[in-house]
């Protein structure tokens, strides 16, 4: 989809950009500028979202950033899966036991105060794991209230979030993204193009001084704010980041006052990654109407002032967005190929997975890890009674508490919806009704819901797994329909999503609503034979993924073809009843989930 749109839409501009894109030079220059700007005020700019695989280019960029740090600026690396108490601070068991008094220690975030914290594999963070980091970025301090400790530590740092995610759905949680002002993508830069940053540590030091005194002319400040609004960026953090970036660029350039060209660069850096690439006339759909509160926003009618400067800035943003789109387009294409060749992700799960829960008395449970803190807490009051003569702690079996990891296997319901022409004509309304009915069920159970729709030539994940009903409703309402039936593509995309959900420790349930008449092959050809072969293969692969599958036949009359397809993937098959469809679907899904 993305490849199609951007490649088709920007043929003209693409030719000009192709050469630069091919050698990745622009992207490295951009990464270098981002690095320098970030270092001028790491905490003020929030952070850099670094997209790209592990490799020499990423390592080199990080090394360059570290080279430019001042002597007193820490660079703290936070590996994936760092426990919360190490991240935020808390009681140090080691020191407490050694000194005999409770001793607290700072966490990694607080150790990064004044410098940079670098989170690895940030795409694996859940939004609840990311929330404490986001809150530290917001307040410049870490505040913990846990396990007998209460403390606030200064933590004014800038974040580098390393994102190795594949595909547009796997990325850093939104609450963290929102608080990082800058973003780079290192994926397609060949190692030979990664060159040392031009600036040295002294340049950054000088820029820091100039930054604190940099003046922003009123016209430029206004333009920066207006451009964000025109680019449909609602959050007010973005213009603030942009303002700071423009000051940082001015400082690096040796300007005492932010110039128009500084502002242009800043807009491209900050807003570029946030906006969708510009669209051509026939493609440009009318912007979605603002959803509600139309009536109580009289001020909305006021048109945004437009000026020459603003036009320039918008142009800068759009060019940046276009570059980004070209980069993504190439990636999506190569991933599609990789996926078509078949690739199974690791599904193994380590023990002790899940979020730590409250410790519980051991009572004969030998297999669990002992929770020292709560064991001490339980033993403490009895020390006098038990007579502590030799200064040693007297522990009894009844004191032992074990660690528990809450691992309620979350269900993740993946809807795969046939939005092709044949389905749209017949049953799309029924299908929507059925899904809506199910949603209220999921809402009560607090399951995750995602939505894949396939039509025309490809399938698209309209919604990656979410608990937000608001988003599900929105995606469902805007479900486009019509065209051919690329069922094979839909099934393989469902498999990809199901496997990624299993990798996160969730239990996927795939609900397919289709008439089973796939007529587009994976290579997008409409040859019936190839299409049928691909569909069948995709169905069997999906069955092998181990996810539970429900297949609802949306044909007018139950068809043997759909039944055979359903059997191929080992799914439970049911025809979607014409009316009251909703209850039937909801009932079937409820039973499937309940059985687990």
């Amino acid at each position, binding site marked *: 989809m993305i490849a199609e749109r951007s490649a088709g839409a920007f043929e003209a501009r693409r030719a000009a950009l192709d050469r630069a894109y091919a050698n990745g030079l622009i992207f490295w220059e951009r990464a270098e500028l981002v690095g320098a700007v970030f270092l001028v005020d790491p905490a003020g700019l929030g952070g850099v979202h670094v997209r790209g695989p592990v490799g020499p280019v990423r390592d080199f960029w990080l090394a360059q950033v570290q080279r430019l740090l001042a002597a007193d600026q820490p660079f703290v690396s936070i590996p994936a899966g760092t426990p919360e108490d190490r991240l935020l601070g808390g009681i140090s068991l080691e020191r407490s036991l050694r000194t005999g008094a409770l001793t607290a220690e700072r966490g990694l975030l607080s150790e990064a105060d004044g410098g940079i914290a670098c989170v690895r594999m940030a795409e694996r963070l859940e939004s609840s794991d990311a929330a404490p980091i986001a809150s530290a970025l917001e307040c410049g301090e870490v*505040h913990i209230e846990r396990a*007998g400790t209460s*403390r606030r530590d200064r933590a004014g740092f800038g974040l580098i979030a390393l994102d190795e995610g594949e595909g547009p759905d796997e990325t850093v949680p*939104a609450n963290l993204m929102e608080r990082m002002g800058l973003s780079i993508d290192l994926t397609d830069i060949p190692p030979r193009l990664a060159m040392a940053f031009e600036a040295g540590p002294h340049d950054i030091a000088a820029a820091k001084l100039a930054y604190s005194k940099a003046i922003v002319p009123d016209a430029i400040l206004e333009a920066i704010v207006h451009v964000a609004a025109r680019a449909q960026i609602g959050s007010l953090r973005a*213009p603030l980041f942009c303002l700071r970036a423009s000051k940082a660029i001015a400082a690096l350039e040796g300007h005492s006052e932010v110039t128009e060209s500084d502002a242009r660069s800043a807009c491209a850096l900050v807003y570029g990654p946030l906006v969708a690439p510009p669209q051509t006339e026939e493609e440009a759909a009318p912007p979605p109407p603002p959803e509600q509160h139309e009536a109580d926003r009289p001020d909305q009618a006021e048109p945004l002032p437009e000026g020459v400067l603003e036009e320039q800035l918008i142009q800068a943003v759009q060019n940046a967005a276009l570059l980004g789109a070209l980069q993504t387009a190439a990636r999506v294409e190569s991933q599609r190929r990789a996926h078509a060749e078949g690739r199974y992700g690791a599904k193994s799960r380590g023990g002790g997975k899940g979020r730590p829960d409250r410790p519980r008395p051991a009572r004969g449970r030998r297999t669990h890890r002992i929770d020292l803190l709560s064991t001490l807490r339980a033993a403490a*009051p009895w020390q006098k009674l038990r007579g502590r003569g030799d200064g040693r702690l007297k522990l009894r079996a009844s004191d032992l508490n074990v660690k528990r990891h809450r691992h309620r296997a979350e269900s993740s319901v993946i809807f795969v919806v046939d939005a092709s022409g044949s389905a749209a004509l017949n049953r799309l309304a029924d299908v929507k009704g059925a899904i*809506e009915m199910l949603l*209220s069920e999921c809402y009560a159970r607090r399951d995750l819901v995602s939505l894949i729709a396939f039509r025309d030539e490809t399938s698209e994940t309209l919604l990656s797994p979410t608990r937000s009903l608001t988003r599900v409703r929105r995606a469902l309402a805007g479900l486009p329909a019509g065209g051919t039936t690329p069922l094979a593509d839909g099934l393989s995309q469902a498999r990809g999503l199901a496997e990624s959900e299993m990798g996160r420790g969730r239990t996927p349930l795939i609900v397919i609503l289709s008439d089973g008449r796939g007529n587009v092959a994976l290579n997008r050809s409409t040859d019936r034979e190839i299409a049928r072969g691909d569909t069948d293969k995709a169905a069997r692969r999906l069955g092998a993924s181990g996810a539970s599958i429900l297949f609802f036949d949306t044909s007018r009359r139950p068809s043997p073809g759909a039944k055979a397809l359903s059997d191929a993937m080992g799914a439970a098959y049911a025809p979607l009843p014409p009316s009251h469809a909703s209850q039937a679907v909801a009932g079937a899904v409820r039973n499937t989930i309940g059985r687990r």
Partner: protein
Amino acid sequence: MLGGFCVFMVCRFESAQPGVTVPPYPFSAIVGQDDLKRALILCAIDASIGGVLAFGDRGTGKTTAIRALAALLPPQNVVEGCPYRCDPAAIDPTCPHCSILKSHKSTTRQAPVVTLPLGATEDRVLGALDLERALVKGEMRFEPGLLASANRGFLYVDEVNLLDDHLVDVLLDVAASGRNTVEREGLSIAHAARFVLVGSGNPEEGDLRPQLLDRFGVFVDVRTPVNPKERVQIVRRRDAYERAPKTFCADWKNKDRKLQKQIMEARARLNEIETSDAVLETAAELCITLGSDGLRGELTLQRAARALAAFEGETTVTHEHLRAVARPSLAHRLRKDPLDDSDASARVDRAVSAVFDA
């Protein structure tokens, strides 16, 4: 913000650092977000309104407004050394600290705005056995938690929809009863914990359980400002604040003081404000029209209208006051079909015009 509390809790740890020295952004310097500001002010006037839930877009200054609130709250008299912040004029007879003392020394403190960080554990929220004392001296002593520190003030939970369910349950239970009862590790303790619960969050991260929504007194739907002038003003002020925080705060101090004085006067007058039967009837009619569940909505509506009247210096509650607080008091209490797309605020507005303009 909670200087006293922090020193008290933290001084035992050797590597503790002093709190952040930058003063918080002043409340009166916040541009726009009038609904949120008004909701906070009304709860500062009358704590029995029952808390604020601010839900909405990212980057709209929810956290800024709540942090700024601390400076507005009138200072209060507390018993010196009492971790539960007892009022010397009305000492809680069950207070674990004050009930065993013969005489009490009074001191003036700033009202607390306590933040409950995500990931907080139950022992620090409710209070638990003081581990160090127990280990070193073998003494059973209760170490008060955040609920004790928040007594007679505000308790703020950012991203409340990400908070563990069991903690949310505890919070709401204590907020409703005004008492915190701890039965754990051989301790049995109860103390007063009356606080205004303020929650904020973003619906895209996940919805709040419907039964929790109704427990917050007022609900504010926070939206990104769309007026270009307002947006420029917000960014400009923020820039000025960051450039020189101390000067900026000094410039706004007078406005904050004025607002604080207004809140104090409104508090003092609150009980003299009269609500006529006609206004009460209208409030009831509005709730019936909307089919909002239970009496909680009606009570909140009355109290919020009364606090607004007091804030505006009036002596009686008018229909205009009711109208002004109808949406935040009722919009989150409508019986909700999770698939109903029609906006709750719009439904309240329709009911308001139906009842008032009839």
